[in-house]
């Protein structure tokens, strides 16, 4: 084990998969010589050459369409979309093309492509460079949506995503690239479609997604000082969802709080709440609480953005509500 940042973990995952499988290639705007806006692909073109790691026009349409075509014809493209907001442009290729071709073909042809993109508020990048696009894609059968939370998971889940035969949207939280954590030195992957309990607790279940997992963990630490023992579940793969660990946890704690970054209304939290209501309603001792953004675009001004983004206080308040405090 050694300490690595999220950025290093992603870079190493990409390098290892490029090394392991010559069908893998990596492309997007500025990913080649420049190393990506966030320097995630730094050094990879030098190491693997311009035919494996290369720049493209700024056309997400080209990236999405060519990635589907490449994935259908024997290679395993990894696309970088600079900002999650730009997923609106590539949405046709993802929802109508990538997601549907395994269904459309009758011979088992899969679509092994990964679309890496950044997401999230907190940088004052304004309303078109700060969104969290999970809700845009969660209702599309055929796509996998992966949102890791630790350097360990970023690396292991990205490697698994590249090896997966289905199209994967891999979400990287912009605020977390510098986060450090323990990462094994040797080869490993983290399986897709498996929720993980990040913290064991007895009093309340907190399901948190992506960048909000850390927020939930910090809230749990503070709650512990208050005598509240919170369990934190990280789905890691949001779609398709590994629901059982969430149900099991709710059956034990009898309380549920869901935390994500996008707007609460129409967001992924509503889906988890509905699933729990269907499967474990009578285990609940309190109404389900959702923590998310208000139903507005991501605002620019520092104080507005701070008010927009869910934080520990919001999670603690929601947990207290479930405890009737």
């Amino acid at each position, binding site marked *: 084990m050694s300490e690595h940042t999220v950025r290093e973990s992603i870079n190493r995952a990409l390098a290892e998969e490029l090394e392991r499988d*010559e*069908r893998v*290639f990596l492309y997007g705007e500025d990913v080649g010589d420049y190393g990506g806006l966030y320097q995630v692909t730094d050094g990879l073109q030098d190491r693997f050459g311009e*035919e*494996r790691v290369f720049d*493209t*026009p700024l*056309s997400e*349409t*080209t990236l*999405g*369409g*060519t*990635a*589907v*075509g*490449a*994935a*259908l*014809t*024997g*290679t395993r*493209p990894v696309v970088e979309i600079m900002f999650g907001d730009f997923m609106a442009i590539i949405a*046709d*290729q993802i929802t*109508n*093309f990538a997601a*549907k*071709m*395994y*269904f*459309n*073909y*009758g*011979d*088992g*042809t*899969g679509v092994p492509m990964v679309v890496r993109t950044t997401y999230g508020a907190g940088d004052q990048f304004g309303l078109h460079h700060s969104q969290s696009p999970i809700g845009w894609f969660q209702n599309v*059968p*055929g796509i*996998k949506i992966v949102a890791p939370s630790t350097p360990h998971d970023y690396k292991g889940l990205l490697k698994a995503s590249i090896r*997966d*035969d*289905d199209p994967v949207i891999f979400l990287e939280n912009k605020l977390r690239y510098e986060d450090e954590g323990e990462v094994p030195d040797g080869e490993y992957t983290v399986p*897709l*479609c*498996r929720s993980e309990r990040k913290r064991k607790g007895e009093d309340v279940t907190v399901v948190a997604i992506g960048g909000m997992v850390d927020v939930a963990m910090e809230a749990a630490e503070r709650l512990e000082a208050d005598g509240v023992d919170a369990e934190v579940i990280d789905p890691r*793969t949001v*779609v*398709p*969802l*590994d*629901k*059982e660990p969430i149900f099991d946890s709710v059956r034990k704690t009898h309380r549920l709080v869901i935390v994500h970054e996008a707007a609460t209304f129409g967001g992924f939290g509503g889906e988890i709440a509905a*699933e729990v209501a269907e499967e474990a309603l009578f285990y609940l001792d309190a109404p389900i609480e959702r923590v998310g953004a208000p139903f507005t675009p991501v605002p620019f001004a520092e104080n507005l953005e701070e008010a927009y983004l869910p934080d520990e206080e919001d999670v603690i308040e929601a947990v207290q509500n479930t405890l009737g405090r």
Partner: protein
Amino acid sequence: MNLNDEQRREIYENLLFARRFEETVLEAYESGGVPELPHLSIGQEAVGVGATYALSEDDWIAPSLRTRAPILMRVPLKEVTAGMYGTVSGPSEGRTTQHHMGSTEHGILGTTGMVGSHLNAAVGAGLSSRQLGDDRVSAVFFGDGATTRGEFHTALNYAAVEDLPVVFIIENNGWTEETPIEQVTAVEEDLIEFAGHDLPSSVVDGQDADEVLAATSEAVDRAREGNGPTLLEMKTYRYRPHAEVIQERRDEAEIKRWKQRDPVKIYRDRLLDDGVVDEAWLEDLDASLREEIEASFEFAQNDPAPPEETMYHVYKDVEVDRDGGVVR
């Protein structure tokens, strides 16, 4: 490409095969028998046949929904017909319409209902070809209407920038659905004016399979030699409306004028003039094609509907229940 007599007969067989197939689809549709709404290619057969003949079997084809001939040339007939009926023997066992089918075995890229979305996919097949070093060319067919979409421009640009082995084939039948293409495109005369300077392009008589074959062969050679993509504009015409549900609004005179240059007749007359075939051979061929096509319709009509579990085929790499929950 110098063709011997056998090859010329084969091209004619494919032209007539596509024609008779589409006519049978129309008959079946009009008698209420085909569930898939037909978007017929009658009148445009020479484009698909001539271009496919220029490709090797390993090359990728990305058809538009009206590019029937290449599919008929590559996929077993019963499978194609069953595809229109949505029965178990179709290319996706009834999950998708035949128009959008994909098949890795037959080198056909699946497509979507978004006009032009397959252009960049064909460029992606070119990326695969480069990555794998397998020399496969991809040929993408699309209508004139697709040239008004960003997909067209981004695909041409990127294929040209990267010198990828792609042949872009516009099947310009003059009408984008029910609107004349010149009404919605800012070109003087030809759609290839949209191509940049760094992309070879030409206008081709799309009613003459030999012309289509010659132009496509040149483009395929260029692509295979690593010299990048080509844009070909095939001037052609469809005899039927965009889809069978749409009211015809084109001039009778215009349709009649184009029928004077019927691609099947042009080829047949040429083969007769050159003594490559005689009337008896033509009659025999027609009879046997009709029989084969009829048999495929009879087969499809008796082919079972897919069982419900057929549609639970969404993820390749994980087992999910019908509501998308992961099965542990």
